[in-house]
């Protein structure tokens, strides 16, 4: 799956062992206050991860176009100078709307630095 230009701006790469997992390296482009990730960059990682998960789920059903309706982000811990992982989970794929959850973590998936909930509008190809 090809990632959009915005994913490249964030430096995102797909995990070679898990095509649904994204990795965001620490660097100046995603830096907030000195030494910490910018909350917007963490959110960006989770939004791209959510869309990747949704595209995978949609591909099994013939594909479609995706439009974001909203996102709610909880910031739980500061993002430090190390790689950040992001993954989305489609909790419901309806005919017109999908509910997706995403989280971002660094050392341990059970200790996320942020979590998000998104709603997407879907225009199916058919």
């Amino acid at each position, binding site marked *: 799956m090809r990632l959009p230009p915005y994913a490249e701006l964030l430096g995102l790469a797909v995990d070679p062992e898990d095509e649904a997992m994204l990795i965001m390296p620490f660097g100046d482009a995603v*830096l907030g206050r000195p030494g910490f990730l910018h909350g917007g960059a963490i*959110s960006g990682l989770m939004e791209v991860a959510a869309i990747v998960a949704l595209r995978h789920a949609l591909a099994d059903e013939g594909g479609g176009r995706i439009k974001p309706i909203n*996102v709610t982000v909880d910031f739980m811990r500061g993002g430090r100078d190390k790689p950040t992982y992001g993954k989305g989970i489609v909790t419901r794929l309806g005919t017109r709307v999908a509910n997706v959850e995403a989280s971002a973590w660094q050392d341990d998936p059970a200790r996320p630095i942020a979590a998000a909930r998104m709603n997407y509008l879907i225009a199916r190809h058919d």
Partner: protein
Amino acid sequence: MSLLSSLPELEKYLRDGGSGHGRRLGLRYLENGPDWVELALPYSPDQIGDPESGVIASGPILSMMDMATSLSVWLKLGGFRSHATLDLRVDYLRPATPGKTVIGRGECYRITRSIAFVRGQAHDGNPEDPLAHVAGTFMALEGYQ
């Protein structure tokens, strides 16, 4: 009222904020009032989220609104405090128009001992036709008051 002259501490922040993710996105300060700030996000092809339409991703808009609302808290306080975003919700009312600068206005409408409540809107030329609406909270680890 200029942001820089009204809050000298913020000058340093804006210089620092002029680095990192904010600089990568090309964010610029536009204007401010006693409890609000407007920032600008110029259109850039490397922020595209949907290559078919050329519409930028939602992430850069969220980043701008996070920064605008954070700055609005310091303006309402009249000084810098170390704080972190607790949560942020963004409603994407419509796609941003490809080629147009997105303008984000963040406002702080309430500050308690440890929590600041913020809201904001983004548009791309006509404030009456917003493209995003946000609501969120910030928390100061050592308190706001």
